[in-house]
């Protein structure tokens, strides 16, 4: 008899448990969703800015100039140092691609200096005077539907941050991580050669 009772109890418990578990899970999920969604929304609308070099293509911005790339009020904004900025709507951005590039530092003065250095000293300097950058490529549409492309050079690791920020704001980001990996490995192999 005792055995029967204990079995029944087990059955009732085992019958109740899944319902409680499901209910508890639902409550947890709801609470988590409630707790997270305002943060995400705030995060998505929070202004964001990063130092960048505009290489080419961005609306009315000069090529190869340094400035600040920012995302604010639904617009992607690039402001040259000490000049008025230009912007495009974030909605018009059609795709974002991230790549990497290793470049020589110092620009033209450094190149001239290296060329003038005696006994091939400039070549030795070149061997160490390079830095890796993230290359962020954007594809966006103008008011007539024409396709534009823009390329920005950012510090290593910052490209990913900008890409995520754009992704949070609803920009479709094509997964081109492999491209970065491929480029970096190619660059490393070149440098090793």
């Amino acid at each position, binding site marked *: 008899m005792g055995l029967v009772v204990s079995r029944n109890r087990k059955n009732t418990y085992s019958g109740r448990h899944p319902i409680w578990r499901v209910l508890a899970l639902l409550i947890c999920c709801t609470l988590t969703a409630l707790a997270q969604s305002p943060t995400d929304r705030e995060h998505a609308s929070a202004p964001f800015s990063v130092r960048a070099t505009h*290489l080419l293509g961005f609306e009315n911005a000069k090529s190869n100039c340094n400035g600040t790339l920012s995302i604010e009020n639904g617009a992607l904004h690039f402001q040259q140092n000490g000049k008025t900025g230009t912007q495009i709507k974030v909605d018009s951005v059609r795709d974002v*691609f991230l790549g990497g590039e290793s470049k020589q530092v110092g620009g033209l003065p450094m190149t001239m200096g290296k060329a003038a250095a005696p006994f091939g000293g400039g070549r030795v300097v070149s061997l160490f005077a390079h830095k890796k950058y993230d290359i962020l490529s954007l594809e966006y*549409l103008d008011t*007539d539907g*024409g*396709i*534009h492309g*823009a390329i920005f050079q950012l510090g290593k690791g910052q490209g990913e941050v900008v890409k995520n920020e754009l992704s949070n704001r609803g920009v479709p980001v094509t997964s081109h991580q492999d491209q970065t990996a491929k480029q970096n490995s190619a660059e490393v192999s070149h440098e090793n050669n």
Partner: protein
Amino acid sequence: MKTTKVSSIAFAAAIFVVAVALSPPARCQAVAVESPGRGVSSGQWSVQVDQVDSRNVDLAYSFQIAIYENLVDELNKTKRFEHIFREGDRSAGEAANLLVLKTTVEKYTRGSETQRAVTSVSGATKLTVRTQLVTRDGKVAFERTVDGNVRFFGSNLRATHNLAHNMAKAIMRSESEPPTAIVAGQL
């Protein structure tokens, strides 16, 4: 008296030499001015630049964008086309004489700026593309294979600028050649 004569002859000779030296560019200019007046003046034509097709080559997307943007810039600089449209531009449909510029990447050698700076002989970035000007009905009016390289100084992306410059130059050169004239006849 003799000295005056000699100096005047020398002056005349100098003028002659200067005139001869300056004459070839003047001729070139005349040809350049004439060419828009022939059969097909590209001034009456519009061109739509399509995005770069690199499906056969593993080319970084930044290079595709750079070629496209540089090409639009370089074609604008030539001032030979009435309008330069971008792919997807709705107003291109209203253009009377429209040519579509298609670019297919055939070969790409990825270089390294550091390698170029260190060795001076290796690490060149090389791009080879096939460029076509196609009419609305799909007839090829112009076709060339064009190269763009960076061998010594500059970043890898500079190859795209050189390539676009060479493409614009090739299109300019072909203006008075038969294919364009044939297109004019067809249209």
